[in-house]
């Protein structure tokens, strides 16, 4: 996304377009990424319930992946997983 200059943007950082947080990809805040073991995962969806950033992707009641564009790497999913199916891996080490 091309960044605007001071003559183009609204003052005070005002946001007048609703639902724009999708434009701000917070994935680059992450230092550790959650890696899911599909063998161990039972699709209990505890991670989906607790992810503060809606970054656990679910289709038809099954976990299909993690959205690394927005996942900040908080590790809640790895902590809560009852089957140890999610491991936090240092970025750049996988």
């Amino acid at each position, binding site marked *: 996304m091309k960044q605007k200059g*001071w003559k183009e*943007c609204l003052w005070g*950082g*005002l946001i*007048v377009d609703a639902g724009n947080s999708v434009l701000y990809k917070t994935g680059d805040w992450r230092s550790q990424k959650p890696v899911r073991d599909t063998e161990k995962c039972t699709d209990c969806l505890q991670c989906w319930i607790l992810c503060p950033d809606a970054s656990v992707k679910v289709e038809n009641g099954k976990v299909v992946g993690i959205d690394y564009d927005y996942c900040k790497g908080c590790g809640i999913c790895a902590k809560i997983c009852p089957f140890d199916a999610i491991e936090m891996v240092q970025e750049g080490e996988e």
Partner: protein
Amino acid sequence: MIQALSGNAAVAYALKQVNPDVVAVYPITPQTVAMERFADYVADGDVDTELIMADSEHSAMSCCIGASVAGGRVITSTASAGLALMWEVLYVAASNRCPIVMNVMNRALSAPINIHCDHSDAMGARDTSWIQVHAENIQECYDNIFQAVRIAEHENVRLPVMTNMDGFTLSHATERLETLEDPQVQKFIGEFKPLYPLLDVDNPVTYGPLDLYDYYFEHKRQQVEAMELAHDVVVKVGEEYGKLSGRKYGKLELFKTEDADIGIVVLGSTAGTARVAVRAMREKSVNVGLMKLRLFRPFPLEEIKNALKGMKAVAVMDRSDSFGAFGGPVFSEVRSALLGEDIEVVNYIYGLGGRDIRQDQIEQAITETAQVAKTQKVKSYVNYLGVR
């Protein structure tokens, strides 16, 4: 109409005539009486204002910001430690581009505790992106309120305005002044036009989001531009007010500067004493002129340069000190404005904590500055007037 009012009563009367949507205040000497009077107007039903009695000045300014972004015309008043306690939220008000008007009755800062006039409070807030005007007398205090409303709300500006007046010297003195009729005031200030109000639920807006290294700098640059554009607005509003009231206002006021060899620069009520001193020194054939700075933010660099150009020496009076700096804040900026000119600029710090400033002391400063002009030698750039 001609009235005899104290500075506090004149401010309260001006606020009544503006009839703002919201006033949020916390009492502090020497501003308390103005707000007591205004509370009377509210209680008597003379205004439609929602008066919020906050639990501190920090809260008062926060209420003002909330009311302003909600879409209301907002006014408040404070002084001294009250302004200092607002420090954090002064930036929030300006950065959210809230056209709030705040009357500041200038008073020294603690410690030791002191309730009398100096400009330490206003000067501490000089970098907050608030427009600052200073008044010489109660007429100006009254007139500045209406102009401040217009300047703050102008679409090219949308910045808060601080109308400064000397605590006690003006707030508690009674002077004759000419007041406008209520409909004249209402016509002059016009209807408040909110921009991006929070209460417009059909057009939702977020104020104060997280603004990091990617956009914060751009938003600060916009404030610089708003200050730049405020220069013209101050002049135009001052001219328009002149047509209405017969009292025209500009960024600064000059007295006998055209043929002057030396100049003296002052803010606030000291201008009155300085004018008398200049007149007396002229009779002694000292070619001195007075520059009264009305606008301190944005700083009227070009006008100052033009008015002082050709002089040999200039004395800048500061009613606050900037401890550890080279002189007071007004001195630093005036001297920097004159960079490249062949003018010696000297500083006189005076009147801290309400210490009286007398005509003979200003005459002494003029005499010393005349000596600098004559010899082109400066004994001391920063001088303290009236300290034992």
